[in-house]
């Protein structure tokens, strides 16, 4: 990969991130691309600045950057990326398709006064959505927009839109992986679930062993099939862990069997269980989390 294409790819990424930040923001935003050259300096420098007044950036946007610098000699490129943000990531995506971004392109030579060339224009969006448009309408409109731009190339990863979907994630809920219901990739999911077994076992064993009720402890030991001489923290934990793993495996076998019988798994009713009791429907300004 030569210098110019990797640099342009890199800049492209920065510009598209900036554009997304602007689109998501509810205010009119400016996206500036400024090229300043100072040929008089040694070595000659071109500084490329991409800035925006959209929502704040987050670390994830930069973590996904994979820039191959192999073709570039260290003496030619200092590769300094400086990122500053003044606000935190907004959680609002309902206005993602609004018409609010103005572009400013500036190119000039530092050493030559009056050499600056500027052009300002609005992002050209064909839809007219307001903030009170329902999310469904916005989504529909956005999808229409996408299809019109890209035809029906579903497998084509459009670089001009979103190069990574990562930074469209909002909120902090734990999304449930659906892999266990899709294909044989469920093996990985089962591994993950099995990895919790020792911790679960330790907690349950702790609940039994730290209890001050000895009758309760005896009952639990007998349920577990442990003889009194066997009882120690490790044996209790091991015994519980084995049972948990066997239950997990049993669930796995059941779901495999149901796939073989070609029974569709029941629709998942609760995608993100975490959200029900907290931050339901509309977010509260401050939950009880402070206290």
């Amino acid at each position, binding site marked *: 990969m030569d210098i110019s294409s990797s640099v342009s790819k890199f800049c492209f990424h920065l510009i598209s991130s900036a554009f997304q930040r602007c689109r998501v923001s*509810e*205010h009119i935003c400016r996206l500036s691309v400024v090229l300043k050259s100072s040929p008089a300096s040694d070595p000659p420098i071109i500084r490329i600045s991409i800035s925006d007044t959209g929502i704040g950036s987050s670390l994830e946007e930069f973590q996904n950057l994979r820039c191959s610098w192999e073709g570039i000699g260290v003496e030619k490129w200092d590769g300094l990326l400086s990122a500053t943000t003044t606000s935190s990531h907004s959680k*609002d995506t*309902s*206005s993602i398709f609004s018409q609010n971004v103005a572009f400013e392109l500036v190119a000039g030579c530092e050493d030559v006064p009056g050499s600056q060339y500027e052009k300002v224009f609005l992002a050209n969006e064909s839809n007219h959505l307001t*903030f*009170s448009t329902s999310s469904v309408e916005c989504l529909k409109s956005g999808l229409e927009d996408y299809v019109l731009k890209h035809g029906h190339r579903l497998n084509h990863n459009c670089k001009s839109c979103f190069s990574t979907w990562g930074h469209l994630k909002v909120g*902090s809920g*734990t*999304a*449930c*992986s659906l892999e*266990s219901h899709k294909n044989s990739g469920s093996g990985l*999911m089962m591994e*993950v*679930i099995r990895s*919790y077994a020792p*911790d*679960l076992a330790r*907690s*349950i064993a*702790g*609940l*039994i062993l*730290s*209890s*001050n*009720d000895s009758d*309760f402890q005896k*009952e*639990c030991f007998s*349920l*577990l*099939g442990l003889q009194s001489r066997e009882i120690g923290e490790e044996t209790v934990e091991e015994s*519980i862990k084995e*049972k*948990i793993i066997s*239950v*997990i495996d*049993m*669930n796995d076998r059941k779901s495999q069997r149901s796939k073989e019988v070609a029974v569709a798994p029941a629709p998942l009713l*609760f995608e*993100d*269980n*975490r959200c*029900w*009791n*907290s*931050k*339901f*429907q*509309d977010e*509260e*300004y*401050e*939950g*009880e*989390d*402070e*206290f």
Partner: protein
Amino acid sequence: MEGNRRITKGREDLLAKIRDFTCSLVRNLSEGRSLAVFIDKFRNYCTNPDANCYCSSDLPKGQEILSVKRECNVRRIDVLLRVLLIVQQLLQENRHGSKRDIYYMHPSVFSDQSVVDQAINDICILLQCSRHNLNVVSVGNGLVMGWLRFLEAERKFDCMNFPSNVHPIPVHVDEVKDIVSVAKYILVVEKESVFQRLANDRFCNANRCIVITGRGYPDIPTRRFLRLLLEKLCLPIYCLVDCDPYGFDILTTYCFGSMQMAYDAKFLRVPEIRWLGAFPSDFEKYGLPQQCLLPLTAEDKRRTETMLLRCYLQREVPQWRLELESMLQRGVKFEIEALSVHSLSFLSEQYIPSKIQGGLHI
């Protein structure tokens, strides 16, 4: 205050419930059945336009089943069991801990305070109790002043002689006893700044009342304390908030409780509370200057539209809904402090007393 959920408030009762829960887990595992935890779901409102929701009832609305079939569930069960173990230890030793203390016991596993908070709420639902029953307490944030006297675990709070002295609201509301008051009403104010304004103006010297602030969003002790005062003193309660979506949300939190604590709403809400001000219409009525008005931001508008969908606004407090709609239509908001623009003491000497005497609350 007694209800089904209070049957298990004693420590021994709760410990017995924890043992039963653990036993049932062990039994299920030993019999080769799945590891599952059933958690009732609660909400104090919905945004369903259908008038047949049953949000006003305190019954659970459905049940969540956490099982080891799904990774996010397993993680939640793991957190729940860890917190339960800590709670069992707190109860057995009769020590107290805060939610933050619990978080710091396994910070790498818990990853976020909200994860711990959810586990605590889940445990309260499972054991059918309130958070303080688990010996999980928090630092209190509320303040009180006025014609009130009470004991809190042998300490005496006597504001009767100095009604404008400010005291923190006690955190262990269970231990508040011997409440005595000669107040005629209770005034709840949203912000500490307004509370201090009233203290400086010696509002309670001129008016026989009790003034409380949650300093923003009211915490659990503040809400419980307010409820306790209502039950013991049976006084009218008036609420003074900023005329903005934030203030309105705080008002509804006092009145209906928060969604987060919906499972305990019965003991935390004060449905008798009256909205004293500030209304959008107060702006003209009291001749506030234009520069006090701020435009509603897009975020404000979005929040207001979402709040307007809450079912209890239609059902229980339609007049509040009208005022909120008016705020949205006008597109402006203002703070209580705007009322001080005529004179610093306008709030204490004119606005509040005249509104209360004139019955100008909804």
